[in-house]
């Protein structure tokens, strides 16, 4: 038990150092990029005196290292600073939009698993046959599609032309849900608005599918390869010889033994999807953190950019940490290896 705690503490420490390095990189990048936060905050028509007054007000007249340390000090209290465009708390702005992105990513991950899992099982069981080849080809094609292009094309075909899905937004024009968690579907459920729940889910299907598709290939390939490896094991032959049915073979022997790498892929995908959601949110008019980051960049709201990138970084590092812990709990071989190292 002590070994486990030491391992977790070490892993946590690595995560914190990673985030500190991330803050330093983002902060430096923001400072190096040409531009003047004080002028943006003071407005396009501001006089030099007004810009200078704003520079002092924002503390931008102090040396960079001092600004960075002040930023870290605020960060320690959960304060990401104030937007120079809206003058509102960045943390509160991100809290407003992050649930929307997490909801989209969770739906996309669900769609990814729903597509990848059965196709990988079919491919593994019918290795090197026509079905397997066709599925592999389809997966390679879908993985290579640029998300932005895919979003625009599917939106045009399935929403604008055929009218099968809503074009944009999280809810229909006249549907409202009282905000509790910020997750539209959960809020609809809490408030007992089943119509809004269905409407919200309906709005998420197409963006979720678009976000899921390019990532589905990697999960499919990982699962297929691992399953083929498991199918080659002697205990599978033994199970078959004992007359274990196909379904039991898959659910009791194949999946549990081939899930290790897939869980790692799913964990890594969560972070990557948060980053990729920027493009999907932009096309489908969803007000998530990607949208927040895009607007911050467009408005040269540098503090908001730092805040948003940092939050995305925290989500990625946290998801990686959680996956490691899950793997540690799930796989005794891995646990023994990690603790020994």
């Amino acid at each position: 038990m002590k070994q486990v705690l030491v391992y977790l503490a070490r892993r946590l420490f690595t995560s914190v150092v990673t985030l500190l390095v991330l803050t330093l990189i983002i902060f430096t990048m923001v400072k190096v990029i040409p531009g003047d936060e004080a002028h943006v905050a003071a407005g396009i028509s501001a006089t030099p005196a007004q810009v200078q007054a704003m520079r002092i007000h924002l503390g931008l007249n102090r040396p960079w290292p001092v600004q960075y340390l002040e930023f870290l000090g605020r960060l320690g209290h959960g304060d990401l600073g104030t937007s120079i465009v809206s003058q509102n708390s960045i943390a509160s702005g991100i809290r407003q939009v992050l649930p929307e992105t997490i909801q989209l990513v969770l739906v996309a991950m669900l769609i990814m698993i729903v597509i990848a899992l059965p196709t990988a099982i079919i491919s593994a069981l019918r290795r090197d046959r026509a079905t397997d080849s066709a599925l592999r080809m389809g997966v390679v094609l879908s993985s290579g599609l640029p998300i932005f292009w895919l979003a625009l094309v599917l939106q045009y075909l399935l929403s604008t032309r055929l009218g099968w899905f809503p074009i944009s937004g999280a809810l229909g024009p006249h549907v409202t849900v009282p905000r509790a968690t910020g997750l539209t579907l959960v809020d609809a459920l809490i408030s007992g608005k089943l119509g809004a729940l269905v409407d919200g889910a309906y709005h998420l299907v197409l963006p979720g599918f678009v976000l899921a598709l390019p990532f589905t290939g990697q999960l499919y390939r990982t699962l297929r390869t691992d399953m083929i490896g498991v199918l080659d094991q002697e205990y599978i032959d033994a199970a078959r010889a004992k007359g274990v049915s196909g379904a039991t073979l898959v659910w009791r022997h194949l999946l549990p033994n081939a899930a290790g790498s897939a869980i790692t892929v799913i964990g890594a995908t969560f972070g990557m999807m948060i980053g990729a959601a920027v493009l999907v949110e932009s096309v489908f008019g969803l007000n998530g953190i990607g949208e927040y980051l895009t607007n911050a960049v467009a408005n040269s709201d540098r503090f908001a950019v730092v805040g948003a990138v940092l939050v995305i970084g925290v989500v990625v590092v946290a998801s990686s940490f959680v996956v490691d812990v899950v793997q540690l709990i799930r796989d005794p071989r891995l646990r023994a290896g990690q603790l020994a190292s």
Partner: protein
Amino acid sequence: MAHANSIATIDPIQAVQAETDTVADLLYDPLVTYNTQDNIVGVLAQTFALASDAQSVDITLRSGPTFHDGTAVTANDVKFTLDRDLAVNAGVGAYLSDYASTTVMSPSTLTINLKTPDSFFLGMLSKIYIMEASLVTAHAGSDEGQAWLQSHDAGSGPYMVGAENTLSDITVDRYAKYWNYDPTRPTSIRILEVDQSATEAADLESGTVDMALKLTSADAESVNGKDGITTAWINSGLTEYMFMNPNVGPTANVLVRKALQDAYDYAGGLAQVWDGKGTLIKGPLPPTLSCEPTLPGYSQNLTEAKALLAQAGVTNLHLTMRYQPALSEFTQEATLFQSNLKQIGVTLDLVPITFSAYLASLSNTANIPQIMLLGDVPRFPDTGIYLNYVYNSKSVGTNYSGFSNPQVDALLNQAEMTSSASTRCSLEEQAQTIIYNQAVSVNMYTYQQPVSYRAGITGVVASPNANPITLSTLRISS
């Protein structure tokens, strides 16, 4: 209504941003505004008068206007707003640099005192939206109420913020007790942020939205005529320029600047890049402004351009132009100019720049780009204000080229101190003639911006001081 850009705040102090102004104009009233003839008319002000020395403004408020909680608008609210905007010293606070104080004589009469004579001040009051003093004071916090006003309103305008709003999805509801109530205004307006033009167009076609701003020209054309949708092409005076730094390098030579003016294919640029939806301009002024002297205008003349370069004794000229590639039209124009210059033996490098970096460069004339491609719209339909911002050497930060000419400065400063409109006009015409002869910029053309909307909506017209339209003019036809 769908629009492409984000609304960072609805605090009217940030009305210098078009997106904030779009909403603030619905929620708040200013003291004065401009009518369609570009004359200043009262809104909350029943009467207003600039003193003959242009150093104060006397105002009598209209009786009847109330804030959205029913409290009457008073002179104290005007004083509070001006003092607060000056204290925040950002956004529209820049328009108050000559503001000294407000003397309240009665609940409906006041005098605004200025530090120096400023005949432009009255016009600039059209972007100072009056807010309810007691309400903002109650939520002032440590930032003069900026955080609270980001998503709440304290105005007396024709609309009030509705429930369940976010800045990307704002609904405003018609204020039933508005002093200038009009039942043909839409009962509510939902303002949705939709970033992609293609998505906006699709939303419009499907009926999800009734109006779309900031569509690309191609999308605006494609929806025009479909299912009762009309695309109006609005001329708000948005004009394109290539400003040349007249202080350093080859562009310090006026002959070189004139040669560059002669090289650009004005007619071709307007036709190819903007599909002909715009007008060529004849001088430094956008055509929506008045007081323009008779000037010859511009056209491509490569022979003359080569002759001017020879006269300047310049060979193998190598120049750099900065531009913002985010707008594809800018990229097309930049490459067009590059090929035009190649024809007269000039090499032009194109280097991207963000608007923020460009703004930062304006504080020092040596850092201002050699050539900068820029679209600019007059903030007010006032020639004096526009010229003063862009060409007066004291306007560091908005003088786009770093142009400095003592004669022009003297004329514009004199115009600023003159309360007589006709005298001001004469001074501004003289300044324009000098600016024209100094060839400060390649003055390209204005281009029109599309607004697509559904049948039944009226009042989609160019606004004198908003870009391109204000929503407060919208009406629903029977």
